[in-house]
Each structure stands twice: as structure tokens, then as C-alpha cells.
């Protein structure tokens, strides 16, 4: 990984528009994730949250605006190049490969940094994975699959992480565990951008919250203003 990526770069998005064919999904999104911050994007289904993450990863072909990782513009770059800049993504479906075992899934991505966490460090963080190295990835429970997806992402040495609804469909106990892991990553200096629907879970973890509605940022607040802004956030999310 380059020195630039190692330094846990921040993300700056300005005037981002994204399209699926004729459908205009993101309509001028502006947001900022400073190095070492955890920023959450909240929004209802179909608001454009996953499209935003995919646009950052270079997976939406028709995009305009600006997406900067540190001082590098990502727009127009292929996904593999973006990943090699130290940006890692866990998709909503976790992206575990069915025919590969836990060990194979884990060692699949290229290691981009010499100081990337080794297996010992990852198994300390995700002890359940060590017991199931030979198990096919898709025979894991939802929680274990999420752990594997997180471990695989960390193993690359990426320092800027994009997580798409990491708690979706998981039991409350597992959600709490994932919350602890994410808090630990934040303390270790990782930059995180999370897409989430679970306001109560993400609010205590996040430094900044954005609300996305019909492809636009309609509300935002910093963690210190969270309590005062709670009614407004709840109204946007229809909770």
C-alpha cells in the first residue's frame, strides 16, 4: 500500500450524482469523513445508501461529481485500483464466496501493507473464525459471515473502510459484538463510513450522522448534537 493510504485517509464527496440507466439515484451528495472518524449514512430503503457506497468503490459506471480519498480523485478509476489505494468494502450481502472455505476466503484479497494485521491478530478479534477454517464460507451463520467479511477486509491492510448495513438480519447479541469491534477499529485509527438503518445502534458509535433521502442529504448532525436532533432524525427515518 502507498504511504498515502497507510495514513487512514479521509473521504470528501462533493456534488455526487449517480445513475442506473435512466434512473437518477444520487442527486448531488456532499459529505465528508475525516481521517479516523466514523461517519454513518442513515436512510430508508431505496434512499440511495448502497449506491453511494458502490459509487465510492467505482462500481457505478455513470457517476459525476467528486470523490476524493485524501488528495486523490477516485471518480473514473476501476474498482481494483480503488481497493489498492487502501479502501475496503463489506457489501450488504457480505460477499462471501460459496465455494471457498473460511481460510480461502480470508486469504483471498491481496495484502496491501506490510503492517496489515496477521492471522493471530485477526483471530484474537474474531475467535469464532479460527475454529471454522475448513468450513465453506456460506455454511457460517449470518454473524460469522459478517465477522469473516470484516476480517477479510482488515487483512488487506486497508485503513479506510466502507460497511454496508453490517447489522442487517443479525441477532441482538451479534449486533452488540459487531458494535464492539467497530468501536475498537475506530479507536485504532481506522476511518469508517457506515450505511445503516439502525439509528439506536449506530448513534453512540458515530462521530457524524447524515440522513439520505431520495438521493439527497436532507439532514446531518455531529455526535455532540445528537440528543437535540433526535426527533428530527426520527421523523426523517419514519421510526
Amino acid at each position: 500500500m502507498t504511504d498515502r493510504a497507510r495514513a487512514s485517509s479521509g473521504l470528501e464527496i462533493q456534488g455526487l450524482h449517480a445513475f442506473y440507466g435512466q434512473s437518477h439515484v444520487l442527486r448531488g451528495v456532499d459529505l465528508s469523513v475525516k481521517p479516523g472518524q466514523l461517519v454513518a449514512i442513515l436512510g430508508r430503503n431505496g434512499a440511495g445508501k448502497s449506491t453511494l457506497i458502490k459509487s465510492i468503490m467505482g462500481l457505478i459506471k455513470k457517476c459525476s461529481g467528486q470523490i476524493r480519498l485524501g488528495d486523490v480523485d477516485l471518480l473514473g478509476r476501476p474498482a481494483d485500483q480503488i481497493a489498492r489505494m487502501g479502501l475496503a468494502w463489506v457489501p450488504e450481502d457480505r460477499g462471501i464466496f460459496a465455494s471457498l472455505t473460511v481460510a480461502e476466503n480470508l486469504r483471498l484479497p491481496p495484502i496491501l501493507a506490510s503492517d496489515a494485521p496477521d492471522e493471530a491478530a485477526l483471530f484474537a478479534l474474531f475467535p469464532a473464525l479460527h475454529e471454522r477454517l475448513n468450513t465453506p464460507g456460506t455454511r457460517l451463520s449470518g454473524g460469522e459471515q459478517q465477522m469473516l467479511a470484516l476480517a477479510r477486509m482488515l487483512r488487506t491492510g486497508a485503513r479506510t473502510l466502507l460497511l454496508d448495513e453490517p447489522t442487517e438480519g443479525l441477532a441482538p447479541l451479534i449486533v452488540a459484538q459487531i458494535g464492539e469491534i467497530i468501536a475498537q477499529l475506530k479507536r485504532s485509527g481506522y476511518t469508517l463510513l457506515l450505511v445503516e438503518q439502525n439509528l439506536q445502534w449506530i448513534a453512540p458509535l458515530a462521530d457524524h450522522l447524515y440522513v439520505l433521502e431520495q438521493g439527497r442529504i436532507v439532514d446531518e448532525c455531529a455526535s455532540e448534537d445528537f440528543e437535540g436532533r433526535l426527533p428530527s432524525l426520527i421523523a426523517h427515518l419514519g421510526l
Partner: protein
Amino acid sequence: MRDKAMKPHIASTRDWRFILFTGLILVLALVPLLGWVYPYFIMQALCFALFASAFNLLIGHAGLASFGHAMFFGTGGYICAHALKVWAVPPHWAVVFALIATLILGLCVGLIAIRRQGIYFSMTTLALAQMLYFVYLQSPFTHGEDGIQGFSRGHLFGLFDLNQTYVLYYLILLLFFLGHVLIARIIHSPFGDVLQAIGQNETRAQSLGYETARFKALAFVLSAGLAGLAGAMKALVTQTASLSDVHWSMSGDVILMVVMGGMTTFLGPILGGFLFAAMLQYLSVLGQWVIVAQGTIFLACVVMFRQGLIGTLARRLRRSL
């Protein structure tokens, strides 16, 4: 620590495939001594089995369905036969020339075809294979409908006379073995894991940091080279290189072999190759109706064993085969 963590996995998934493949090689090595089966049948089956395994590397692991793989099989045969007959080189050089030619052809075709995905990739390979078929039909060196025939196999390294059946048999068995060792190495390497990832979800593999086009191109070239080696082996066995091996129907036959045996398995294409050779040998009494018989068997396999014979067995045994 990293190596220690991965070791148990590598040992356990290979076991059954390794044991069964080793057993198969030992049984095949004994065939000439026991005189159970006609050696020419086994040699042809070994050629088809390697061709099917080469094709499976592409369709079963990288998820790339080439509809034109006969061009590599046939080209391997033509180059080997031409080198033996016209250039009068020893057989080992004829096989090496066939291998190099098909690797180069694979690179050229691969670079064009992998730009497209799904059915467009398949149709591109079919179109290129049909173009090459027409070139071979018109080229003087292939002798058109007659093909290249009536050449001597020569002496391997100046020592072993390949015109002796059993010397040829062990050479074909050795090439079959080496081809499959290479395939096993590819499948069980990190490169093989990336191919599988591409086959299942190319976008996801890309977002992990892999330039997937390069991996697909390399897989295509390796598959083409192995298919060319199988074609060269068949030319040595039959002492013939003909248009039938470059015809689109041969590209269909290799799909039949892989689907019958089981895509994504290691042993499935080998079984598929043997079954196909058996069909050619024992159903030839049906004349043109052999196509109908093949179609019926193909349909039965698809309906009753969707994962192929070995694939279904592997599922029942909960093992990788």
C-alpha cells in the same frame, strides 16, 4: 502464524481427490500388463479427459463458457501432425510446438474474448473458432477434408519408439498425469482461489483489488495450452489430424464431457472424457444416430444429476472430488 493457520485446510481438502487420482493412475498403468481393455480406447479417453479438464479450468473455476475450445484442441493436433510429417522433428518437439502454438493462439483469442462477459464472451469464442475452422478448411497444410495422416510417430528423445503401442501408451499416460498435476496446482493456488471468486462474483473480486481481466486472460491461455496438448496427444495416438477436431461440434462435445462428469470438480471431467470415448467406441454401431444417443445421455445427466455424476457423488459424500 499465517502459514500455521492455513495448513490444516490445505491438507484436508485435497485428500480424496489426491487418493482417487493416484489410484486411477496406478490402475491405468497396470492396464497394458493385465490386458483388460483395448489400449487405443484408453489412450483416446485420456486425450478427451485432459481436454475436458482443460475446459473445466475455464468454465468450472473461472465461470467462462467458451463455445470455441475445439480450435485449441484441433490446432494442437494439426501442429503436432504437421511438425512430424513435414518438418520431420522428433515427437517431443512436435508436442512442444503444438503447446507453444496453442498458448499463442489462446493469448490472441483470450485478449479479444475476455473483453465481453456472459453470452457475448461465448459467442465471440464461437465466432473466432468458426473463422479458424474456415482457415483450416482452405489452408493447404491441413489437406482440407483429408486431414494430415499417415505420418510416423518417431522416436521420443531418439530412444523410445512411439510406434510401439505400449511405449506410446505410457507417454500418453505421463502427459495426462502431468497435465492434471498442473491443473491441480493451479486450482489449489491463490490464483485458483481468485479464479473461483471471479467465477462466482466478478464485481466482488474486483472490489477486493484484483484486475480480473488479467486473471481471466491467464486462465484462458493456460486452458488453451492444455487443450492444445490434449489435441497433440490425440494426433500422436490416431496418427491423424482432421477438421473434425476443430469443428464446432467438438466444442459442444467438451461441454457434454464436463457437464456429464461434473463442473467445478477435479475428477468429473476425467470421468466425462472416459464416458465420451466409450460412447464413441461402443455406440458407433448406431451410425448417425449416435448424436441422438449422445443427446439423450446428456439430457438424462442434466435432468437426473444436475451437478454431474462426480458432482452428485461429491455432494452425497460431502467431499470435494
